[in-house]
């Protein structure tokens, strides 16, 4: 079956593409493959992320320098990617609020002309795809990556796009999903796709 035939078939039956692992992070809970693996009484996302980092036994000091969106994306990716080889795993993420959480903080640092202190360490996170870069660095993933901003989570769109990456042979797996965060409203739903 050539790529196009396979793709046509896939459009009829999306289940051809296998979803092998899932991770959901919301309401201070991390659920992996349907099992609750971590829950924190922490009130803010920042506290929750710190507790989750400890609980997952991650040893990666760079985590603490990340912005909140990157922390959310990073935690969800860690539960799925683990220590396996992901040199052929692409990343396709999307969200609604882009990097507005950090954009807002950065803007506050330049609103006042008399108190004008733009920081490069904050500015670099005013792009939503930085979280993809963070995950790529951690897992040495020199692979296809894309970040979309959509009004709402559209799994079909992300899967269709991922299918093209898989069918073209540019990757064997795709870490795919929704990583949305603005202040205390957040949700990650991330999963691993293969053909």
């Amino acid at each position: 079956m050539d790529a196009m035939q396979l793709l046509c078939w896939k459009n009829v039956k999306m289940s051809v593409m296998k979803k092998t692992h899932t991770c959901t992070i919301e309401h201070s809970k991390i659920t992996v493959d349907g099992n609750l693996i971590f829950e924190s009484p922490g009130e803010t996302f920042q506290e929750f992320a710190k507790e989750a980092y400890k609980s997952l036994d991650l040893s990666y000091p760079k985590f603490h320098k990340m912005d909140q969106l990157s922390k959310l994306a990073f935690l969800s990716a860690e539960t799925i990617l683990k220590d396996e080889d992901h040199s052929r795993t692409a990343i396709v993420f999307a969200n609604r609020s882009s990097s507005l959480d950090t954009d807002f903080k950065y803007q506050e640092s330049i609103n006042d002309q008399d108190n004008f202190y733009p920081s490069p360490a904050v500015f670099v996170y005013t792009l939503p795809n930085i979280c993809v870069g963070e995950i790529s660095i951690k897992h040495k993933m020199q692979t296809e990556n894309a970040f979309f901003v959509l009004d709402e989570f559209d799994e079909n769109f992300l899967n269709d796009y991922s299918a093209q990456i898989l069918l073209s042979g540019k990757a064997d797996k795709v870490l795919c999903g929704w990583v949305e965060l603005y202040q205390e409203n957040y949700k990650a739903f991330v999963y691993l796709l293969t053909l």
Partner: protein
Amino acid sequence: MRKEVYITDYNCVTPLGFTADANWKALLEGRSGVALHKIIDNQDAFYASMIDSEKLNEEFNRFFAQNTIDFTRLEKMLLLSLLPLVENHSISDDTAFILSTTKGNISLLKNQSELPEGVYLSKLAQKTADFFGFTTKPIVVSNACVSGVMAIAVAKNMIQAGKYKDAFIIAGDELSEFVISGFNSFQAIGSGPCKPYDKNRDGINIGEAAAAVYVTSCHSDEGRISQNEKFRFKFLGDSAVNDANHISGPSRTGDGLYASIRNAMTEANVSSKQIDFISAHGTATLYNDEMEAIAFNRMELQNVPLNSMKGYYGHCLGASGLLESIISMESALHNTLLPSKNFEDMGVTQPLNIITENKPAAVRYILKTASGFGGCNAAVVLEKC
């Protein structure tokens, strides 16, 4: 057979002109949009490529005289760039609408305590889509400075997935205090007009622009591409590989860009010897240009004529990749390669064939590349048909 995907129309709005034709004429004369502009109160002026707001409003009011909706400056740029394409090609329920931007209406955020609706990129896309009557859900590509190149790849991939028959891609970013202050905090802004690949380069100029491209699919029996089209470029291959090295610094090895070019050329089934022209990213920072030179050499592309358009337009962020793709297609159509403006003395350690004057050339295969924050890179291969 995979569906073939073609670019058959485009337009752009820049400081050099409000149509692709006007831009091409200005570029042939060697004009640049880069000049000193005061963008942040109480701070020195920066070299940047800025659209004259009065001229923009005049042009907008001329074409949208009946309009009663309140549009931002960026939205006006986007609407003006898209208008001729929407007039020339019909919109159906199978038409995709793709927006490439990094910061959208970020200027609306100034002195706000809550997020204004207009700063959401999906709202910006929806407002533009609604205005022209698009019915499918807008797709926003926001992958830092590779967004514009990636947007064409997204159109191609979604058309090949059978989700759409054609697509309108728009790209836009505007100059803002937000972006200028940020790049300045990185000490990444050049002290004068930027000099890509030059030994005296010392940083970027930020620019602003909007660009629009129409992409359509064609099965031989379908005839969706009208013979009246002025031109066709076939989209042959694409790739966007991460460096996995640093979130704000380019890779020292050019790994991500190298892999992106390799993948795109493999998919295109085009060899390094066949590439006639490279429209490179060339931001004029020390590390970016060096990284590109390494990646091009690893692909044995060092003898292919190459330019960066940043000396003419500055770095237009999410618009740059689409704008520069359009100019490279104009180059191919006019059989004329443009010099890499402000380049004088070689300033990268690896050889490159940098174009230094307007030069007649037959161009069939174009390689367009971009790289950006987050370690992202993108490459596409286009063929003039």
